[in-house]
């Protein structure tokens, strides 16, 4: 059977796995996972769109699918307790994912329908009555204010410096984003070509990591220590 997975980028391995199983109109079971294992591996192999930060998640699921597949082919195969546990976890995880995916679709419809209930502020029309606390004087007021002040941590000089660094990181992120937007594609060495010191290169690297985490950019690195290519996330 020739079956082509739709080419949309899947957010995560669970989404891909569930879609493969549902296309076959099967329930979430070990058997159905064994049947789609091949297509799952095929997808990872052919899909370069899987970004780096997701790849490990896809691979971790792939390894468990291979276990499941091998057991379906060789029923006599004995697994360790740990492996059994991993297979069971994957089934449970997928079942949970399916529940929440379905729930999120329903929630999405509810939100899209924009049927909102409005409440109103409590005791709207009630006129206020002057009712001061008893045995309470100016110095109580001062005492409570000082208690509040005491709870606010004193910011030490050292922390101020850290704050300053964070701002630089943010600035660097914005700067990098501008550069990449202009060029669409660039490399890390290009970005730090004009760096004046090591710290600036390190900050640029941290900025790049942060942007990967925020899914602003995608990176590619052919092999260890080779050039890192950056492009805007689609």
């Amino acid at each position, binding site marked *: 059977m020739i079956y082509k997975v739709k080419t949309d980028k899947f957010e995560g391995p669970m989404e891909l796995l569930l879609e493969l199983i549902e296309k076959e109109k099967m329930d979430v079971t070990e058997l159905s996972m064994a049947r789609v294992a091949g297509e799952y591996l095929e997808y990872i192999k052919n899909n370069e769109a899987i970004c780096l930060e997701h790849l490990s998640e896809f691979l971790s699921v792939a390894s468990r699918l291979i276990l499941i597949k091998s057991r379906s082919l060789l029923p006599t195969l004995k697994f360790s307790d740990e492996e059994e546990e991993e297979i069971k976890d994957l089934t449970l995880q997928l079942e949970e994912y399916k529940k929440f995916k379905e729930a999120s679709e329903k929630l999405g419809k509810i939100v899209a329908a924009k049927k909102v209930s*409005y*409440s*109103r*502020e*409590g*005791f*709207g*029309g*009630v006129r*206020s*009555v*002057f*009712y*001061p*606390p008893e045995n*309470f*004087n*100016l*110095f*109580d*007021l*001062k*005492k*409570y*204010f*000082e*208690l*509040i*002040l005491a709870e*606010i941590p*004193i*910011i030490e000089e050292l922390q101020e410096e850290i704050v300053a660094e964070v701002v630089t990181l943010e600035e660097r992120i914005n700067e990098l984003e501008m550069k990449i937007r202009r060029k669409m594609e660039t490399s890390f060495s290009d970005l730090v070509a004009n760096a004046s010191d090591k710290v600036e290169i390190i900050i640029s690297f941290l900025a790049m990591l942060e942007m990967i985490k925020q899914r602003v950019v995608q990176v590619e690195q052919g092999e260890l220590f080779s050039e890192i290519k950056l492009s805007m996330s689609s």
Partner: protein
Amino acid sequence: MDQDKLKSIVESILFVSGEPVKISRLAKVSGAARPEVENALMALQNDYARNRGMVIIKKEDEVQMATSPENAETISELVKSEIQENLSRSALETLSIVAYRGPMTRADIEAIRGVNCSFTLRSLLMRGLLERIDNPENSRGYLYKISFEFLKKMGVDSVEKLPDWESLSKDARIENIISE
């Protein structure tokens, strides 16, 4: 428009408004003709006349939803109990913050205390310990300040006369939080 649907719309508008609403405004908002709105209001009043907790009060050209006079005693008990409980720790904290730092926005009070203060503020307003004034910088927001009555009760006539007001009101720790 369907009479029942119009009645339900008018009921929702009156509920969420809380304050008196002009009949002409009801007609405009609901898109129905004025006589239709008046009919819907009458139908609503009839519904409410049957042992319900709400009434529709009509005065000249304005209508308002309010609690049934039959329940006046219970409602005033509820309000009283809300007011007469001792002030909680969070209420006292909020009071002192507003006394030394007010007039200020709810957002700033919450930034200092780190928790939502809407219930506390409401109860302090109801007890007449705080006042709410319009925020000149934001037409939809309010500023909270200590009530003159409460200051008087404590024996001063302005916040500047609170103990150590000069230093406490300008404490850098609070400046740091609010400016963030």
